Each structure stands twice: as structure tokens, then as C-alpha cells.
């Protein structure tokens, strides 16, 4: 059992994951300090989701080492799972449950006693401005589904959040609400590791960022260091991933 607070929230060394002969993640080194709001950026297909899926234990890696909150993956995966909250890019919601029922179920799966899970489920429904009615999740809009997913990631009070595009499809009000809740979690000592294509959001929320390109970490620094260099996050991102080519035009278009 690691000493409380001693190890970084995420420590990845020489991580490699191949699909066939193509490396999706190619020797990634990453250290995310506890209590940080960490943005993990990269163009489409750069290896962001693969990295997050490895961190959640959903897919095995080929070489390297992964530690979350001081626990080694995959050896101590249950210990890790108990302590993390996950908002994946895919929906992990059970369509035929209502929002409250789903949250209660998740709470109980994370070891909460039923009355506690029920109480927290109702509290989270209120917090995320969701009606605790008979409507099943199947009938929820995309934004509501994201809110429920984020509420579910909070119910067991995790130390580390892994979030893949948490604001995708959420309206401005919902996004504001979710951002406030996440900031509050960081203030309380939780660590947030998120991916997003909305660079303005990352720039405003995160205190550290890493940019992955072609499976390799191209840059990993604090937002303060980035600002000192006089570049916006968007400029740095475009420069690093090498997308500054001239747009070609199609004659017929």
C-alpha cells in the first residue's frame, strides 16, 4: 500500500502499445502531480484515447510501466479502480435505468451502502440539475447523458478523474456547471486528467498540459510556462502537431 500522497497521481514510463506493427502509443513518459488539473491534448488518432484506455485498465499495454495513485497497473487494478472516476468517450450508461437508479447502482458497485448510494444519487441529480423522474436514460439528450456520466464518476468520491472529452455535446450552461464542479474537486485535492479538443477550455481550466503526437509526448509543461513563451495554447498545439500546411482546394468543390 503506497504512502498517502507520496506518489504522483499518474506515473507512466516508457509506455508502448502496438496495433499490429503500428505503435499507437510509442514510449510515453508522463507524470501527473496530485491535485493538478491536467490536460492531455493531441490531434485525432494521436494516441489520447488509447492512453486513457490503458490507464483505466481497459486495454493491456505491450511494454513500460503504469502507476496510478501509487498502485501498479495491471497488478493492482482493483485498488486503482476503487479510487478513480471515469468519464469515457463511449457511453457507459445503462439505457433502461433512470438517472437515479443508475447512480445508485454505480455507488453500490463502488462499495457504498445502499442508503448512502441512494442519498448521494439524489444529491448528484440535484447538483447536475437533472430531474429524478421516471424517464429512462435512453430518452436523455446527449448533454444529459454526459451530466449523468460525470455524476456517476463522482459518487464514490474518487481521488483521480480520467475524462475523455467530457464537454462534448454539452450546452454552455451544462459545461459551465460541469467545469465548476471539476474545479471544486481540484480544490478539494482531487486530480483531473482530461482530454479535450476545445483548447480554450483546456487553457482556462488546466494548470498543466501534455501534447501527444504520433504516439509520443511532444511537450509536457505547465500552462504558466506556455504563457511565458508568449504563445497561446492553440498556436503551440498547431506548431507542435505540424498542421500549418496550406489547405488544398478541390476544383469541383
Amino acid at each position, binding site marked *: 500500500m503506497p504512502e498517502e500522497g507520496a506518489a504522483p497521481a499518474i506515473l507512466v514510463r516508457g509506455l508502448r502499445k502496438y496495433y499490429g506493427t503500428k505503435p499507437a502509443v510509442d514510449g510515453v513518459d508522463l507524470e501527473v502531480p496530485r491535485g493538478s488539473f491536467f490536460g492531455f491534448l493531441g490531434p485525432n488518432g494521436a494516441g489520447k484515447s488509447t492512453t486513457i484506455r490503458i490507464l483505466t485498465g*481497459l486495454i493491456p499495454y505491450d511494454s513500460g510501466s503504469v502507476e496510478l495513485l501509487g498502485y501498479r497497473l495491471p497488478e493492482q487494478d482493483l*485498488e486503482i479502480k476503487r479510487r478513480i472516476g471515469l468519464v469515457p468517450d463511449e457511453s457507459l450508461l445503462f439505457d433502461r435505468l433512470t438517472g437515479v437508479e443508475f447512480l445508485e447502482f454505480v455507488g*453500490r*458497485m463502488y462499495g457504498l451502502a445502499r442508503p448512502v448510494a441512494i442519498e448521494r444519487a439524489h444529491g448528484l441529480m440535484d447538483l447536475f440539475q437533472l430531474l429524478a423522474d421516471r*424517464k429512462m436514460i*435512453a430518452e436523455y439528450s446527449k448533454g444529459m447523458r454526459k451530466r449523468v456520466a460525470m455524476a456517476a464518476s463522482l459518487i464514490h468520491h474518487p481521488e483521480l478523474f480520467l475524462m475523455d472529452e467530457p464537454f462534448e455535446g454539452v450546452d454552455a450552461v451544462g459545461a459551465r456547471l460541469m467545469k465548476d464542479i471539476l474545479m471544486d474537486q481540484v480544490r478539494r485535492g482531487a486530480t483531473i486528467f482530461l482530454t479535450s479538443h476545445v483548447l480554450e477550455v483546456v487553457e482556462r481550466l488546466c494548470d498543466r498540459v501534455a501534447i501527444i503526437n504520433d504516439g509520443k509526448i511532444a511537450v509536457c509543461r505547465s500552462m504558466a510556462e506556455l504563457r511565458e513563451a508568449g504563445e497561446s495554447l492553440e498556436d503551440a498545439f498547431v506548431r507542435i502537431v505540424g498542421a500549418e500546411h496550406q489547405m488544398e482546394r478541390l476544383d469541383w468543390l
Partner: protein
Amino acid sequence: MIAAILRAQLLSMRPGSNRGLGLGVLAAVFWYGFWLFVSLTGAFFASHATVDMLRYGFPLGLMALCIYWQAIPVLSASMGSSLDMRKLMVYPTPHEKLFLIELLLRFATGIEMQMVLAGAVIGLLRNPVSGGAAALPSLAGAALLFALFNLLLASGTRSLLERLLGRRKVREIVALLLAMTWVAPRFVMMSGVKPTWLQSAGVIMGSFGWPWSAAARAALPLGQSTGTTALCWLSLCAWVMIAGWFGRAQFERNLRYDTLAAQATPMSPVSARTSLWTERFYRVPALLWRDPLAAIVEKELRTLTRSPRFRLVFIMGFTFGLMFWLPMMLRHNRQHPGFLTHNFLVIVCIYAMTLIGQVTYWNCFGLDRSAAIFYFVAPQPISRTLLGKNIACLFFLYLEAVVLMALTLAVRVNFSLGQVVETFVVIGICATYVTALGNISSVNYPRALSPERVSQSGGGNRAQALVALFYPVVLLPVILAYVARYAFDSDVAFALVLSVAAAIAVIFYWIAMESAVKAASARRQSILEELSRGDGPVGS
């Protein structure tokens, strides 16, 4: 346009790997091999039949073929592939082209009947009484028109059912009515009651007013006047046109049908009393097990009871099952009480178990679809999830048995307390075997299932192959217990063999669980990919 849709579908069906391809091929060989045998048998009888046999037998044969063609997809709760309109309606595709693809899909669904029809035609061509090769134009023409009639009717029936079964509250009533419609005549016949109108009904059914008799008499005039033959052709063409209108009209209505609106939760509040009772039902697992197992079982009870797909097969289990087997049992009971009488409850429960298998144990994660990711990120071993799902399945099986017993008592068929206990024990043992095999199938051949689409088949081809090949094998120890009872005429022998079967079931379940957990760990990525995979333009 049609080619583009078919190509997109073919590309969507590309297997991720060659895993289980052999099983799929083996199952196809087994299934179509069986129908080839039926077809050849039909050809043999058709080639040796006398004029009288053909006059009475041919229309009846065609009627049976028509009934199978239309009824079996409904009875098996697997109505074959259909166009996914949500994906196709955004394109400027003319409706008639979509309808043509729909007919091609119905063609693929009823291919075994076309084999039988072809066998009958070939047999008749070899029979001198039917006129030999000279009868080819009329035989082939009538067979083609009859096949077209069936295709169009099947298309219309499917569209109509798809809509009716998609409506809240209505679908369960429709399922019950279907059960009555398909099985009521059989019930009357098997119960031994001979209504006086039955004979005249038989004569009416044989007249050229019906599509099967019109097709038979148009194909083989067998001494009837030219005028009558012409009337038969007219009748057959009229039936094809009616079926065409029905098929097309129902297809058009399906195009305009709003599934989401039909399935939306009504705004009206549920009475507190109803809500209290359903909550009590859902909370039963918490009385028996501790979390997280209780939470998993409870979640399964909630999601399955709210899934139209599950509710349909559950209702079919005790309605179709009862109405299919009860007449047979009543007849046996009167003549010589025997195996069927004594084991009626077990047989119907096994039928129910087979039906609900496609949405429960054979494909445990199917209805969860991409949400199954939760089980892999939750801090619980996957074995607990599988166990919870298996317990929920057993729960429903026992519920099915209780409903069956209540219905059986309601129709004044009595059974002893011993039979009740035996049913519960046998179902428990059988369920242990099939859920054990189902756990392996669920992690090796997962497939996303829509909870709303009541006409969707349960598992992928590979899972269905596994079911067809191993289902009888895994139940063999239980079957042997019944063999022992009747061979030795002893309940003690039955109990002994059943005890051995139970012990083997527990060991088998344990080994299968170990294997499933290993496979789930090794294949979790592909499992989630399979469960997140969407269908092509054609949903199967």
C-alpha cells in the same frame, strides 16, 4: 443505389477476425443440410405421388409451407434482417428501391422454404401423372407467383408486427393475440374436440379461393376444366396483388413511423401503489445477497423488465409454450398418460429457457451494449458480473415457471407437489449448464442488441452456431436422468442420475466461469469493440 446499400451492408458484416468463422459455417451446413434433406424428401414424395394424393396433398403442403414461412419468424421471436431506416432515410433513395431491398431480405429469411418449394417442383416434374417436362411452365410459373406472394406477405406482416410490437402497452397484447392466432387451431385439433364446421372449413380451405390451393391447382390442373384452371391463375394473381399492396402499404407506414415517440415514457404519474410494488420486486435481490452482487442482479431485473425485446420473449415463454404443448399433453393424457403428461411443466420451462436465452445468457452483455465498459472499469471482478447476470436469468426462469404453473392450474390441469419440486430442480440444473456455456459464448461472441427492436435475433451467427451445436449436448446429463427413470421405471434411479447431473453442472459451471473470466480479460478490448459496433444499413 441498391448495390451501394448492399455493399455497405457487406462491408459492415466483415468479421474482425476469423474467430468462430468455422462454427458459423458448420451451423449453416447443419441448418441448410437439414432443409436440403426435407427438400429431397419432398421431391421424392412428389415424384411418386398418385393423382389423388396430389389433388389433396399438394394444396395442403403449400399451405403448410406458407404457414411456416409466415409464422416461424414470429414463433422464434427472430424475424430476420431489416432495413435500418434511421440510417437510410437521410439519403434521397426512392422508396420503391428500399422496398425491393426489403423483399430481398425476406427472400434471405425464407430461403429454406424456397428450397422445399424447389424440391416439390422438381419432384412433380419427374412424376408422369403431372405431365412431366410439359408441365414446367405452369409449375414454375405458379411456384414463382406463390413464392412472390409469400415474400410480399412476409414483408407486410413483418412491418406491421415491427410497428405493433414497438408500441408501449400494445406489444404485450399483440404477442398474446399472436399466440392465440397461431396456436388456437392446433389447440382445437389436438384437444380432440371436433366442431362440425371443421369439415366444411377444410373444404373451403381447399378451394381455389385460397392462395395455396390456387397455386396448387394452377400448377397441376389434374383433370379440371380450363375455365377452372384460368380461375385458379386469376385467384393466384389477385392474391399476389393483395399481398403486394399489403406489403408496400405496411412498408410505407414503417417509413413514417416514429419509434422514439412510440416508446417514450408517458408523462402521467404512476400510482404510488404500483411504484411501491415494482420497487419491492426490484429490491428482492438485496434481501438474498450482499452488494455488489445484489446491485448487479437488481440492475438486471430493472433493465430486462423494461426491455421490450426481453418482455416479448418472456411472455412468449408462457403463452406460446403453453398453447403449443398443452393440446398435445391433453391428448396424451386422455389416451395414455406418459412422458409428456408427467413432464409437461419441465418441457414448457425448457422452451421458455431456450427463448429467453437469446437475450440473456447466450449474450450476457448484448443489451448493455457499449455500457458493458462499466463492468470492466468497476472495481469488481468480471466473474461477479457474470454470476449476477446468471442469477437474474435464473430468477426470471423461476418466475416463468410460476406463471406457467398458475396458468396450467387455471385451465384445470392439475399436477402434484412432487412435479413442482422436480420442475424447479430440473430447471435449476439445466440453467446451470446453459448459463455456464452462455458465459463462454458471451465473452467470445458478444454482439450489441437493441432493447427496443423486438424482431432482432439474439446473438451473432457464431453464438447461434454455438447454441445449435452444444445446447443438446450440455443438457445430456439431465436427459439421461429421464432415460434412467423410464428405463428402470424408478424415481430413485432418476433422482440418482439427476444428482450426478447436478454435481457435474456445478463443476462445469465453475470451469466455464474460469474460462470465461480468462477470455474476458484477454479479449476485453475486442468485447467492447464488438458491443460498440453499429450495424450497417441493414439491421439483423
